[in-house]
């Protein structure tokens, strides 16, 4: 498939390129060729016409010149003398000179009766009477007749005067005697080959200009007579054709009617030729009784050789151009067709569901429409791929979602039935709540009553608290009295301490006194022995009293400590009493607040009762609402069933979608 597409689009493009290349080429070539051909034809015709004219003039000049020379010779004294004296041999060098210079083949002298007197070519004196002129040639005889009768120089047509002789023509001029009468005729023979060579182009062939003339190499000019026979040589016919070959009389009869012209025809060998023709005009110039037609021909093929060359060159050029066109066309076609083929292949792939296709960009910077097309295709394909992918993903997601929805729907159905049963339960519960609220109403009334009694009790509590506060105040006073007493006690112990110090001092002094007494006793010696004992006793007493004071002081210290403790205890007691007062005040406040709260709760209980009434009516409404909810739930159940059906069909659709998307290759 891919091959055939390549072929077709490539081939089409290449053919189009070919056609676009070849049509103007052929047209131009053909136009050029035919225009050139026409121009060339005109040129060739013009050329040969002019050549024809030139040759004609040359031939006339040639003939006239020979005729005049012959006339001049005939009128010389030497000729007359020669004839008179019959000294032919003496004249021979002059004849030979003439023959050489003017190209005469022979100079013949005839007498007035038509007998041959002398022939320069054979250097023979003829017996004028023995030789019959008629025997020699009718052409000379005819000429002689004409000259004699007209007494003017005359000329014959080109003839074969003898068998196997070269074609030649003769000119005759009258030789006048001194008396003024014609007594001889001088005839010269000129070979037809002279004219042939005169009009031949051989000499021109070497020149440069000759080569420039189209068809020059093949061009030839010849003369034909009124009998349509060749008078000069023709390359086409060979030497033997002179006076034998008959040219197309139809054409040249026009020339005989003094019409010159050009035409295209076919020669004896069947080749196409171009020809120009005209009447030489001998009758007008030298009064002959005949005339020639001069014809210049050229081979058409040869003449148009350059054209042919041009044609070939044009064809070769065209061929080259076509090859070039082919190459460029192929290249261009490839440039255009290849991406299109790729693109088409990708599009086929796309059509088959393969979205991975991406056209390889041989030239990513290509900015023309094809480049843009490819890039756009790639971008589009990419986008499409992405979209397909997302579509696939979405499909998968959709299936998952549907599954989930399906599950949810089942759950919903279950929930709906559960809800239905729950609603029944709720309805029952509402009934129960109704009953409960009735009970609550009763309870609230009870609470109101009991809160009233609580309020009374709290008032009693308040009174008791006030009494307690009074008692505590009394305790406070007592505590203050105790504190004062303790302080007094503390002061009294101080005075006791002073007394004790005094006693201690006395003890100390009595101790020293006892020591001094002992010293004195020692000084007294034996007499002081008794006194020494007394001093000892005094010392013992002072020691005892010291110890006693010490004990008293210790006891006193204990008392002081105890009183300090008592003072601190009373202080603490005072503080505690203050706290007790505060606490009892707080208790009073608390009882107050309690009383207030009880009142509030009593009011609240009343409100609860009222609310319960409202609740009861609300419960009735709720019951009705539950009934309607139950109806709605039934409808829900039905709806869920329908939803399940819908989900099933949706699932089937999603599966189909998945199957479709799965067939794409991404």
């Amino acid at each position: 498939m891919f091959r055939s597409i390549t072929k077709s689009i490539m081939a089409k493009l290449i053919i189009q390129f070919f056609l676009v290349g070849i049509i103007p080429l052929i047209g131009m070539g053909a136009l050029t060729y035919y225009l050139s051909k026409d121009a060339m034809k005109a040129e060739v015709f013009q050329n040969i016409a002019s050549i024809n004219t030139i040759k004609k003039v040359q031939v006339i000049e040639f003939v006239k010149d020979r005729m005049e020379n012959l006339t001049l010779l005939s009128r010389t004294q030497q000729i007359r003398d020669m004839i008179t004296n019959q000294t032919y041999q003496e004249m021979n060098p002059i004849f030979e000179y003439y023959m050489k210079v003017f190209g005469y083949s022979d100079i013949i002298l005839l007498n007035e009766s038509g007998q041959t007197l002398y022939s320069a070519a054979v250097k023979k004196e003829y017996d004028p009477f023995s030789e019959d002129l008629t025997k020699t040639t009718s052409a000379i005889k005819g000429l002689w007749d004409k000259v004699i009768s007209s007494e003017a120089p005359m000329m014959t047509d080109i003839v074969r005067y003898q068998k196997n002789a070269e074609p030649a023509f003769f000119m005759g001029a009258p030789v006048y005697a001194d008396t003024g009468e014609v007594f001889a005729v001088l005839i010269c023979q000129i070979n037809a080959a002279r004219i042939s060579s005169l009009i031949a182009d051989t000499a021109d062939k070497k020149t440069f200009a000759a080569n420039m003339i189209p068809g020059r190499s093949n061009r030839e000019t010849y003369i034909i007579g009124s009998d349509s026979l060749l008078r000069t040589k023709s390359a086409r016919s060979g030497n033997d054709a002179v006076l034998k070959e008959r040219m197309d009389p139809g054409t040249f009869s026009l020339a005989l009617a003094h019409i010159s012209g050009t035409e295209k025809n076919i020669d004896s060998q069947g080749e196409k030729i171009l020809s120009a023709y005209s009447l030489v005009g001998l009758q007008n110039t030298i009064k002959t009784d005949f005339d020639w037609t001069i014809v210049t021909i050229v081979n058409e093929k040869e003449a148009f050789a350059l054209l042919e060359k041009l044609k070939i060159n044009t064809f070769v050029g065209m061929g080259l151009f076509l090859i070039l066109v082919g190459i460029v066309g192929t290249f261009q076609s490839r440039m255009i067709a290849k991406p299109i083929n790729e693109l088409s292949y990708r599009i086929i792939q796309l059509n088959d569901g393969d979205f991975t296709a991406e056209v390889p960009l041989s030239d990513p910077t290509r900015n023309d429409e094809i480049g843009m097309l490819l890039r756009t295709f790639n971008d589009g394909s990419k986008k499409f791929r992405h979209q397909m992918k997302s579509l696939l993903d979405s499909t998968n997601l959709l299936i998952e979602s549907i599954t989930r929805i399906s599950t949810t729907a089942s759950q919903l159905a279950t929930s709906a039935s559960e809800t239905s049963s729950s609603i029944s339960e709720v309805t029952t519960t509402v009934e129960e709540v109704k009953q409960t609220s009735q009970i609550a109403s009763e309870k609230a009334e009870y609470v109101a009553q009991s809160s009233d009694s609580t309020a009374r009790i709290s008032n009693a509590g308040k009174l008791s608290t006030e009494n307690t506060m009074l008692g505590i105040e009394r305790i406070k006073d007592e505590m203050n009295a105790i504190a004062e007493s303790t302080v007094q006690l503390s002061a009294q112990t101080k005075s006791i301490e002073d007394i004790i110090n005094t006693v201690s001092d006395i003890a100390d002094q009595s101790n020293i006194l006892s020591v001094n007494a002992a010293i004195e006793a020692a000084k007294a010696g034996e007499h002081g022995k008794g006194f020494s004992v007394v001093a000892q006793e005094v010392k013992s007493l002072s020691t005892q009293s010291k110890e006693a004071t010490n004990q008293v002081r210790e006891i006193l210290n204990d008392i002081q400590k105890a009183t300090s403790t008592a003072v601190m205890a009373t202080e603490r007691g005072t503080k505690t009493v203050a706290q007790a007062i505060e606490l009892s005040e707080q208790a009073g406040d608390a009882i107050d607040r309690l009383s207030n709260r009880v009142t509030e709760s009593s009011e609240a209980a009343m409100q609860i009762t009222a609310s319960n009434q409202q609740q009861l009516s609300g419960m009735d409404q709720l019951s009705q609402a539950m009934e309607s909810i139950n109806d709605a739930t039934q409808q829900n159940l039905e709806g869920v069933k329908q939803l399940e059906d819908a989900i099933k069909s949706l699932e089937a659709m999603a599966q189909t979608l998945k199957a479709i998307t799965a067939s794409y290759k991404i």
Partner: protein
Amino acid sequence: MNEEKQAAGGIAEKILKTRADQLARTNHSQKPRGKQITVLEFRLAHEIYAIELTHIRTVHPLKEKKPTHIPGTPGFIKGIINLRGEIISVVDLKHFFNLLDQDSGHSSQVIILSSKDMEFGILSDAIHGVTEFQTADIHDSLPTLAGVQLEYIKGVTANGVVILDDEKLLNDKKMIISL
């Protein structure tokens, strides 16, 4: 109740017995051994010293009256006192003996030492009383003692009472200060 009464009775009995023990005096002078000396015990800082009664004139309580300090005297001379119209210089033995805790307690009594040439008072922290010792009981001074103290010590009793040499103190040239 009976038990409590009995316990209280037990305690009272115990107290009475302790007191009796405290009051009971042991008779030291029952068995005299050799020569007997009579000394006055007194306390200096934490140690108990004793001086023979031979040169003691009297003991005088200082009470609140502190000795009047005399400028330009060495540190061991505390000052002077007025003893019944008589001016007597007072020496602080604690300072003199370089005893520790020189200023602890208040020296409440002054022991007046006198000989025919010399008379001065010694500060004592407390007077213990007059006691008699057997000379046999007095040991020589401890070999560990050294310095100023050693010169003025006669000996040490078994009870650890240091007996000072009153003669040496009275005749010591250091005590005589010339201004």
